[in-house]
């Protein structure tokens, strides 16, 4: 049943936009069915009330595991507290839905509006029914989100958007604090010995669970957890210093204000504190912060209300004040305070929702909510006026209305505490509240009629029904308090106090001195309130100016300043942190590298083992020196051409070092790559702008320093690592021993490439293909014609075409043929001797490049005849296919498989050879595709 109650409004929220198109005028009534049904489900779930029983204390629970891993369960619980709240929510929710259907008239978006309202109702029901901290939090945030959508409903107005944002940010910040608080509470409960399943269960925390309650107050985390929870509650319930979002939220359509901002959502904070009071209350910290925060809020709200002339803003500030009173009553933990809380809370929900709806009717009827422009509407809006008067008198605490009972109990609770200060503050605030009740609920209906934007008229029935029901309900409970105090009242007071309490309400307490004193206080409040109202009547505007000046130094101003200042400062900071220049970022990157490696050196990194042993030979030193010189020269080169040459020097020296240290394959590959790179660079650089150093001397020095330190630290780490390795390593031995017998190859380097680590090679040739595609994509970009910045500056070295030499032209074709044959030879022998697919592919590519330079790209393209992209794709397919052969036979992918007999002329043949053919094709295809395209573009531009 409980599930049902929570789910119904959500289902309605999904259906309503769809129903809007079909149901037209009856939509409001249809929307009201959802909270009504939820309410009926709740009533059905409650145990039947037995007037003869000593006590009626409902406690219905439903638990479904949600995220049991984290100790989160979908747990609901219906007890006195949650039942009172839930029934208030469905009552006001139903009436407001009916009201909203009429209020929005033919607005095409009313389906969406009613859906938001329904979603909010569901979230609110879920919130009050939750018995799990995190379930509660989920609904808590959902109310914030739906509230955001509702406040910003008139979203083309910038005030509505700003108010929605403000409400969301303030309650969102509180939500985050609450989340942190809940996590801490759960942690504290777990460390107090509660099993994880129950550590987040509210009923367990307040001592009503299957396991004994933990003493949270004794935990180290109690103080931070409590403070965080309080921040959550205070933001939601618009407590000082977060109170300002609530008056701002009055930008919402009136039904929203009635439901969210008076009766339900803003009470969520109070609800939360009431819910957790048995677990967290009773300490000095609780008493001090809760009572103090409540009292401060009560005064702030009451004082700020005085200066308002907008009906809804008056009501909003008085709501703030009442929320403060409610919180204040949670502080002391006395029986009288809990009883007063119970009564005052329900009374307020009824009268405040009614007053909001009446304010909506007045606005609807007259086109204004300005009290100074309203008056004498009694005759024109009789039903609304009746509702308004009933509600206002209830707020004013006039007998025999419900509000009177609430105020009496409030005074009892305060005098109980024997604190003159608290009594004084409470009386003062209540005097102001009384005055404001008259201001908002009575003044528009009495006195002189004023000129209003519309000629006033009574609202349609759907719009006076709600406030009238609420107003009459306030009267009925005042007259027949037994309806409330024996049922929900006592049950709720018991739930909040955590001990059995019996609530007994009466208009007349007999002739004892205490009761008379309280009655006297009530009378004084009423009279003084009327006095303030009379005094204020002609002076609202003047007082309003003072109030506005006051709020300019208040927390709202701080919020705006923080938001605006933050929004202004953020771009400046971001500009600094994320500079968006590659040079800057590279510098940062290498600085970070140097700093980190420097840190390692500071920790005492040194080289282990014997360095430089055996001492390097002279030619080794010479090559190393050449490589280093090449690198330095590259950095300092005055032009591109010099830089290329210098880079070539480094490459060649390193290649020679490879050759020296018996790595002919690496040396060959590197030589070929260097050769082709030069050709590539020649084609590329003619499109680049003239090399010009735009850096200052200081910048160059800084860059050189970072570069030098980077090289030095890296070299240092290299030396440190080099000292560690024993020779030969395990891998080295394995490769050396297994290469011939098991991988059938004498050339270990090639066997590593095509067999031991063929997966790496497969990845790398894919990289090659993609790189080729990328270059083609970029080459085909037409340089932007406008102002020639970036890539498109004028060609620097006004390169002229390669001079067609007759010897070269004649020789190119046979050389190509020879190189092709040689490359195939290299490919085939690669497994046993220096060579292989990479080298073969590079060789034949070099042959084609030579031919292309001699005969022109068109002729070269003619020789190849097929698309090079396909060529590379084919190579990739061959390589992958060779790897999949083993896979199809149930062996791991890329396992080398060999034909049992050697083929004539080829020797042993296996899949790894095929793989190498794939490599060959990819290298050939990708390299040629890039170079040919560059050359073609070049000749295109020069023809």
């Amino acid at each position, binding site marked *: 049943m409980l599930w049902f109650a929570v789910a119904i409004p959500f289902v309605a929220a999904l259906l309503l936009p769809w129903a809007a198109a079909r149901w037209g005028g009856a939509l409001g009534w249809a929307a009201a069915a959802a909270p009504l049904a939820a309410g009926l489900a709740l009533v059905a779930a409650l145990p039947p009330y037995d007037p003869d029983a000593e006590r009626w204390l409902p406690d219905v629970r439903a638990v479904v595991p949600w995220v049991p891993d984290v100790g989160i369960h979908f747990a609901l619980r219906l007890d006195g507290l949650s039942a009172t709240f839930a029934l208030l929510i469905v009552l006001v929710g139903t009436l407001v839905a009916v009201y909203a259907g009429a209020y929005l008239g033919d607005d095409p978006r009313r389906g969406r509006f009613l859906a938001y309202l329904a979603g909010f109702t569901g979230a609110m029901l879920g919130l009050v029914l939750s018995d799990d901290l995190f379930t509660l939090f989920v609904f808590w945030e959902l109310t914030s989100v739906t509230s955001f959508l509702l406040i910003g409903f008139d979203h083309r107005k910038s005030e509505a958007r700003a108010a929605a944002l403000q409400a969301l940010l303030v309650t969102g910040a509180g939500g985050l604090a609450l989340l942190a608080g809940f*996590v801490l509470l759960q942690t504290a409960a777990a460390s107090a010995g509660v099993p994880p399943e129950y550590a987040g269960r509210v009923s367990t925390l307040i001592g009503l669970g299957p396991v004994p309650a933990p003493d949270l107050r004794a935990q180290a985390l109690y103080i931070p957890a409590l403070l965080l929870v309080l921040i959550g509650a205070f933001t939601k319930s618009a407590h000082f210093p977060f109170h300002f979002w609530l008056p701002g939220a009055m930008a919402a359509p009136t039904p929203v204000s009635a439901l969210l901002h008076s009766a339900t959502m803003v009470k969520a904070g109070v609800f939360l504190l009431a819910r957790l009071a048995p677990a967290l209350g009773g300490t000095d910290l609780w008493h001090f912060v809760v009572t103090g925060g409540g009292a401060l809020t009560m005064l702030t709200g009451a004082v700020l209300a005085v200066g308002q002339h907008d009906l809804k803003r008056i009501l909003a500030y008085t709501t703030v004040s009442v929320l403060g009173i409610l919180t204040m009553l949670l502080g002391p933990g006395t029986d009288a305070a809990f009883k007063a809380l119970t009564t005052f809370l329900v009374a307020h929900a009824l009268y405040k929702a009614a007053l909001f709806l009446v304010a909506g009717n007045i606005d609807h009827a007259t086109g204004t909510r300005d009290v100074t422009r309203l008056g004498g509407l009694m005759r024109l809006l009789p039903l609304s006026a009746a509702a308004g008067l009933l509600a206002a008198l209830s707020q004013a605490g006039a007998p025999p209305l419900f509000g009177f009972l609430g105020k009496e109990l409030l005074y009892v609770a305060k005098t109980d505490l024997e604190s003159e200060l608290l009594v004084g503050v409470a009386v003062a605030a209540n005097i102001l509240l009384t005055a404001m009740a008259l201001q908002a609920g009575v003044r528009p209906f009495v006195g002189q009629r004023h000129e209003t934007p519309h000629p006033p008229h009574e609202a349609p029935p759907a719009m006076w029904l709600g406030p009238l029901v609420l107003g009459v309900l306030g009267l009925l409970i005042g007259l027949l308090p037994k309806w409330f105090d024996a049922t929900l009242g006592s049950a709720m007071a018991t739930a909040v106090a955590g001990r059995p309490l019996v609530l007994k309400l009466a208009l007349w307490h007999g002739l004892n001195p205490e009761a008379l004193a309280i009655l006297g206080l009530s009378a004084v409040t009423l009279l003084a309130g009327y006095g303030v109202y009379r005094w204020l009547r002609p002076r609202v505007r003047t007082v309003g100016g003072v109030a506005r000046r006051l709020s300019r130094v208040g927390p709202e101003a701080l919020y705006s300043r923080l938001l605006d200042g933050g929004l202004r400062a953020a771009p400046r900071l971001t500009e600094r942190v994320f500079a968006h220049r590659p040079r800057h970022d590279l510098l940062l990157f290498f600085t970070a590298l140097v700093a980190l490696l420097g840190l390692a050196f500071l920790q005492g990194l040194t080289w282990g083992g014997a360095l430089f042993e055996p001492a390097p030979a002279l030619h080794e030193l010479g090559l190393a020196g050449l490589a280093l010189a090449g690198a330095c020269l590259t950095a300092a080169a005055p032009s591109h051409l010099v830089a290329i040459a210098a880079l070539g020097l480094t490459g060649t020296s390193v290649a020679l070092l490879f050759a020296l240290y018996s790595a002919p394959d690496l040396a060959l590959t590197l030589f070929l790559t260097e050769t082709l790179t030069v050709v590539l660079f020649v084609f590329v650089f003619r499109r680049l702008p003239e090399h010009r150093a735009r850096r200052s001397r200081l910048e160059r020095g800084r860059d050189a320093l970072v570069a030098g330190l980077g090289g030095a630290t890296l070299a240092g780490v290299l030396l440190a690592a080099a000292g560690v390795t024993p020779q030969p390593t395990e891998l080295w031995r394995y490769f050396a021993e297994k290469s011939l017998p098991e991988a059938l190859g004498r050339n270990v380097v090639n066997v590593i490439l095509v067999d031991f680590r063929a997966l790496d090679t497969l990845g790398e040739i894919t990289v090659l293909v993609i790189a080729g595609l990328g270059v083609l994509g970029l080459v085909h*970009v037409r340089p932007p014609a406008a102002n020639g910045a970036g890539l498109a500056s004028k060609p620097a070295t006004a390169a002229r075409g390669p001079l067609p030499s007759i010897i070269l032209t004649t020789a190119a074709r046979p050389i190509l043929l020879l190189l092709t044959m040689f490359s195939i030879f290299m490919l085939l022998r690669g497994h046993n001797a220096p060579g292989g697919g990479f080298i073969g592919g590079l060789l034949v590519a070099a042959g084609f490049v030579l031919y292309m330079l001699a005969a022109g790209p068109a002729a070269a393209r003619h020789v190849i005849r097929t698309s090079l992209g396909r060529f590379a794709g084919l190579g990739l397919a061959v390589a992958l296919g060779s790897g999949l052969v083993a896979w199809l036979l149930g062996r791991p992918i*890329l396992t080398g498989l060999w034909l049992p007999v050697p083929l004539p002329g080829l020797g042993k043949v296996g899949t790894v050879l095929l793989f190498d053919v794939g490599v060959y094709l990819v290298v050939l295809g990708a390299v040629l595709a890039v170079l040919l395209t560059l050359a073609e573009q070049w000749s295109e531009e020069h023809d």
Partner: protein
Amino acid sequence: MSVLLVLPIVLPLATAILGLVLPRTTRVQQSVAATGAVAHALAAAALLAAVARHGVQAVQAGGWPAPFGITLVADLTSALLVLLTGVLGVAVTVYALADVDAARHRRAFLPVLQVLIMGVSGTFLTGDLFNLYVWFEVLLLASFVLLTLGGERAQLRAGFHYVALNLAGSTVFLIAAGLVYGSAQSLNFADLATRLPALHAERPQLVLALAFLLLVAFGLKAAVFPLGSWVPQAYPAPPAAVAAIFAGILTKVGVYALLRVFTLCFPPLPALQALLLWLAGLTMVLGVIGAVAQTDLRRVLAFHSISQIGYMLLATALVAGASPTARPVAVVAVLVFMVHHGLVKSNLFLVSGAVGTLRGTTRLQPLGGLAGGAPLLAGLFFVAALSLAGLPPLSGFWAKLTVVQASFGARQWVLAAAALGTGLLTLLSMVKIWNEAFWKAPPIEPAAPAPPLRAARCGPIIGLVVLTAALGLWPAPLLDLARRAADQLLARQAYIDAVGLARPFAAAPPTVAEAAP
């Protein structure tokens, strides 16, 4: 089993090859790409199911025993992330069919996208440090091509920035891999799991230096502050589909590499952990401040990616920490956050693409009125944005909750507060987008009502929104999986056993137990 393990790599490669040889702009090409993406996702799902049922899976590519060949390994962490890649691959491929122009298709957009998926899957599945480098190269080149394809000025600028930085990162990674091989004599993760702690006992500073080198290389990929400024360049420039796959998965690769290497291979390094913690905090906070500062929808989203990486790094740093109770929660947090953020951020970029299609711009100032003009898109954005901001009951809430729980568990109060504060600023900037693009009246009312979006555009967005909502409402399976993945990741033994190191030579290196500090 070995079939499933290599499929996430082989399928995209085969699809890409097919795409390369087929004509580029035909329907056949498109169906091949879509089929390939779906097949990849299905294979990934099957792999995850297999790993969940049978434990860690490993294959020795080439049939050579570990650590001599290359081992591919799938534990729950890897398999989950491959599945995420698969799901995003499908969404982005489908979106790209509608969104990417013919010129880009002619330049092999779809095959390159497949290669990116292959590279990412390879990264998650490899059990070898050098092979990881190779996959990094594959995805670097593929992403560079996707980024620059089309050759718009912003793309070229971003592409240069991206490739310049990443090549520097690759170089450092390569040097680091070489040094690890040189000093620990292995590249196999499982092998390094014993060898690096042993080396650490002997030469702690050397191991720290190696860790720092890898931190720089992976940190650049993950966009850790201060190495993350390529993100706000690279994400807004290319078409929305590219931005979506970048935002969904590209930075996660760096986080994954950090997580894998520093939980499996390296011993706990307090200096590294402390550094990572504070870098995570800075990344988180500075990223979100950057987001608040932006005035373009896609740039807001790009900066958020940096910020959210901060959350993942924070959790990763907590994993690398010593607190035994906080570590499993932290792994759960990393994984849940990665899955959540992948789905949601990709989706928001797709939404930004749809907004661009409808209105021709993603700058917030000239936008407006989309709540009324495109209510479906508005609803989808709203849900995704709230999920990003970590509001319940969406996937982002669980991601945020687990990160906060992990931080509290490790007693990192300041960072927990920073994470929560970042959440608030995330909400602020999401609402800013919502207010500007969707709620406010447009400065100039569009002449005609926006045409309805094509199904290929809406479909992926709806699908991803449904996923984030489903994971939010029903998070138990994901959290449960993440919890098991955490146990697996932290115990390490299952991984090492699955790899099954061969010891053909007598002098075997010490076992885990001996090497443990």
